[in-house]
């Protein structure tokens, strides 16, 4: 038995595919579309995960929040001193931050307050504090992300912005600079100002903060430290960076899971259509098989040829779908589709999906498409291959 690949059979299979232009085109089209959508979704999630992992790594290891009546509440700043006393805690900083809703544009800004005399919990903040004075000559300054700047410009705020305080009065904060953070994802909607200004805007007391972030000397001790904090302050909620990572991964998996569920439905519909179309054999096709058998093709040969046909079509469509997804996601930045995952907000759409090459995604899409298509053709191909030749060639 010759084991080298039968080029003649492949050629014949390709010819057979081309002989049924309409049907082949339809299958390739639908198949490509499905793989395209699926691969795009996976590419997007991989990229976002990558971005987020990078982001999460720059986030604090432990965040301590005060919980009152099941809700997040301002925490006392002096908690910081107690926490610093715990073994293993390298650093503790009280954060003042929150979301400011800008009604005109219908977007939320993330407002972060920094105290220049404190050690910052993020390198990018360190840089800002060094570069710009957030309070100078009785004026307040802020540094904003690019997305924020765009939105403000649209509402004709170019040099400053008027925040509306909870009591209805205005607070004017001047634009001191634009963020150049390491990852756009985190900085796009961020405004950095002095802690005092932030407190003003949110009407927070001087000795209160939004939460406290901790830096831990040995990351493996995070869990132990968390339990220690909980025993000292039972009314707190503690979030670690691992928790964040897992929850992001879960959100992505959840969202891509929903998408996948929809995909499965369409896949099974496709399966049924394929089955239907292949079973309804034209008399033309039946005659052709009858001729092949009459001139000496065995059932196994016909089956092989049919398999080559299915494989060629599905693999071709798979490759095409993946290629198109590649172009769509990484060159055109996946318009529309991206929004499902990033959240439809004007501020968040402006960053570049990093190129993440994941073999597993390619295999995943392959397993979800090619074997299913070939499976759908097994029974129809078999029916054709086992036709009684003599009845067909009369």
């Amino acid at each position, binding site marked *: 038995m*010759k084991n*080298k690949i*039968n*080029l*003649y*059979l492949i*050629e*014949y299979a390709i*010819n057979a595919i*081309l*002989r049924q232009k309409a049907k082949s085109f339809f299958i390739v089209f639908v198949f490509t579309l499905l793989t395209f959508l699926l691969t795009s979704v996976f590419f997007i999630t991989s990229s976002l995960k990558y971005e987020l992992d990078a982001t999460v790594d720059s986030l604090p290891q432990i965040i301590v929040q005060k919980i009152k009546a099941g809700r997040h509440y301002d925490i006392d700043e002096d908690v910081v001193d107690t926490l610093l006393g715990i073994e293993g805690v390298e650093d503790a900083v009280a954060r003042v931050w929150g979301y400011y809703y800008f009604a005109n544009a219908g977007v939320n800004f993330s407002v972060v307050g920094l105290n220049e005399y404190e050690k910052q919990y993020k390198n990018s903040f360190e840089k800002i504090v060094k570069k710009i004075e957030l309070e100078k000559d009785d004026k307040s300054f802020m540094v904003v992300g690019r997305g924020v700047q765009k939105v403000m410009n649209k509402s004709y705020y170019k040099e400053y912005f008027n925040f509306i305080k909870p009591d209805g009065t205005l607070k004017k904060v001047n634009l001191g600079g634009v963020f150049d953070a390491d990852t756009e994802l985190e900085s796009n909607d961020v405004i950095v100002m002095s802690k005092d200004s932030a407190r003003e805007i949110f009407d927070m007391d001087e000795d209160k903060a939004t939460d406290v972030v901790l830096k831990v000397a040995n990351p493996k001790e995070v869990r132990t430290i968390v339990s220690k904090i909980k025993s000292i302050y039972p009314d707190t909620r503690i979030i670690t960076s691992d928790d964040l990572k897992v929850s992001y991964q879960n959100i992505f998996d959840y969202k891509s899971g929903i998408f996948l569920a929809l995909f499965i439905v369409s896949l099974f519909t496709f399966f049924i259509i394929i089955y239907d179309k292949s079973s309804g054999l034209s008399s033309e096709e039946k*005659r*052709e098989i009858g*001729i*092949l*058998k*009459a*001139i*000496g*093709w*065995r*059932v*196994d*040969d016909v089956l*092989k*040829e049919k398999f080559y046909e299915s494989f060629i079509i599905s693999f071709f469509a798979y490759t095409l779908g993946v290629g198109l997804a590649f172009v769509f996601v990484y060159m055109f930045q996946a318009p529309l589709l991206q929004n499902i995952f990033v959240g439809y907000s004007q501020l968040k759409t402006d960053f570049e999906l990093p190129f993440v090459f994941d073999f597993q995604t390619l295999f995943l899409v392959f397993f979800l498409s090619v074997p299913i298509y070939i499976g759908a053709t097994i029974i129809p191909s078999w029916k054709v291959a*086992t036709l*009684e*030749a*003599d009845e067909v*060639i*009369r």
Partner: protein
Amino acid sequence: MIELKNITKIYEINKSDKVIALDDINLRIKEGELVVLKGASGSGKSTILSLIAALSKPTSGEVIVDTKKISKLPDNFASVYRRDNIGFIFQKYNLIPTLSVKENIILPLVPLNPDASDIQNKLDIVTNRFNISHKENAIVRNLSGGEQQRVAIARANINDPKIIIADEPTANLDEKLSLHFIEILRELKVLNKTIVVATHDPLFFGLDFVDREIEVHNGKIVV
């Protein structure tokens, strides 16, 4: 060389509907003979051909070709037997119009995945013999009726089979092409092939190079 022994073939359309295509027939064809089976449509002559080609199995009886019992061969073996021993000429040529002459002729050999030189050799032999070597790469649908006929016959001969089977070969042809076909049959006879032709075309009757004419009527051979 070909022997049908007590052959009965019954087609079961469904549980209650049966058609007796052949009723206990006996037939012997010697090597190198050219036999014409004549009879109306449905008389059973096409069934005899399928049995000889191992395209169908008899309900009872034996088909023996060259001392080998071929009636109950499993499908894969039957196909191999057919490929190696039978050249089939169909009613409507049954060529694939969008493929070239060469691709059509080598079709029986495709599953074997032979060497390119081997294929070319066999191809050259038949294209030269049947005069279409100059059109090897032409697309079949662009050929004339006569040329297509020769391609069909070349395909039937690519594996140098011992037996040629033709089922109503001239049914769709005009007189000129029919006569042309008969000439080719004469050539094949010269090559000492065993030829069985099923036809009700009167052009075949009374030909000088036909060894026997056998009449088939209602599933029985008329003596």
